[in-house]
């Protein structure tokens, strides 16, 4: 159990850094989505099932879709 927690925390840290630092904006959105799913798992571990349901539905479903629509509308954003 504790090993699982440490692995999840490490992966969350890496995903956060990659979501902020990666050049490709599409990858950035996908890393953010994966971070949200892991955060939902952390909420389950913290005995907050209500928050976990909301985070899993919103963070990795709706928010990703809205960000991808925005990304498509600004034509990839032309990051430098």
């Amino acid at each position, binding site marked *: 159990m504790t090993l699982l927690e440490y692995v999840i925390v490490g992966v969350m840290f890496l995903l956060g850094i990659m979501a902020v630092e990666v050049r490709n904006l599409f990858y950035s959105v996908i890393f953010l989505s994966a971070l949200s799913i892991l955060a939902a798992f952390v909420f389950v571990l913290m005995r907050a099932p209500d928050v976990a349901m909301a985070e899993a539905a*919103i963070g990795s479903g*709706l928010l990703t879709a809205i960000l991808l*629509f925005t990304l498509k509308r600004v034509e990839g954003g032309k990051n430098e």
Partner: protein
Amino acid sequence: MKKLLALIISLALFIFLFQLVMETPSKLLSERVSSRYVQKNVLSSGEAEETSANLVTSVVLSYRGLDTLGEVTVLFAAATGVAFFMKNVKERLNFLFSSFIVQTGARVVSPLLVTLGIYIFIHGHLTPGGGFQGGTTIAITTLLLYVAGGLVERKRTVFRTLEGLSGSVYVLIGLMGLAVGGAFLYNFLPLGKIGELFSSGIVPVIYVLIGIKVGSELSNLVLHTTGGDNS
């Protein structure tokens, strides 16, 4: 150079927050504010003042019901802002990958998803879940139908009507509580026993209303984000 400066600032912030959290004594639940919320529910089981089995629902809708009304208002303001900014964006996003299989699959799956959402927000006072989660599930159904090729394009007025209606009924129930019991959002329906479907008074009614409101609100927001004519 700029990245180094940002790194130094964020590291300093991290150390500051770390020390702040370390110095804060961790209180037991019995010393916290919410212990009263938990105790009043359980210990006086004969005359409990609030009888929803899910304590989070009890905090969101019964003890902090007015805050939830304000929160729904903030969500409405955000959706209005999105509609305002996307009004002049004419071109639509089109999805070329919506094949026959995707369309048929979306038609098959979407009634099941809407049923799941309605189940989640009807049982919000008994099990994990509630109006916010169920409403989000319904909004995801709208998103699926949109990706499958614009099956929901003529439903925008329906969403708008549902959203306004449920918000008005929420305020109306609060005013009825003011008239009956002397306080806004007073729980004037019979409370029942903990764990039954028809229990805890106005809480399930308000959660169903919030589910409808959040579902139509977020559906409208997704459809506005995709652009096109915002008639």
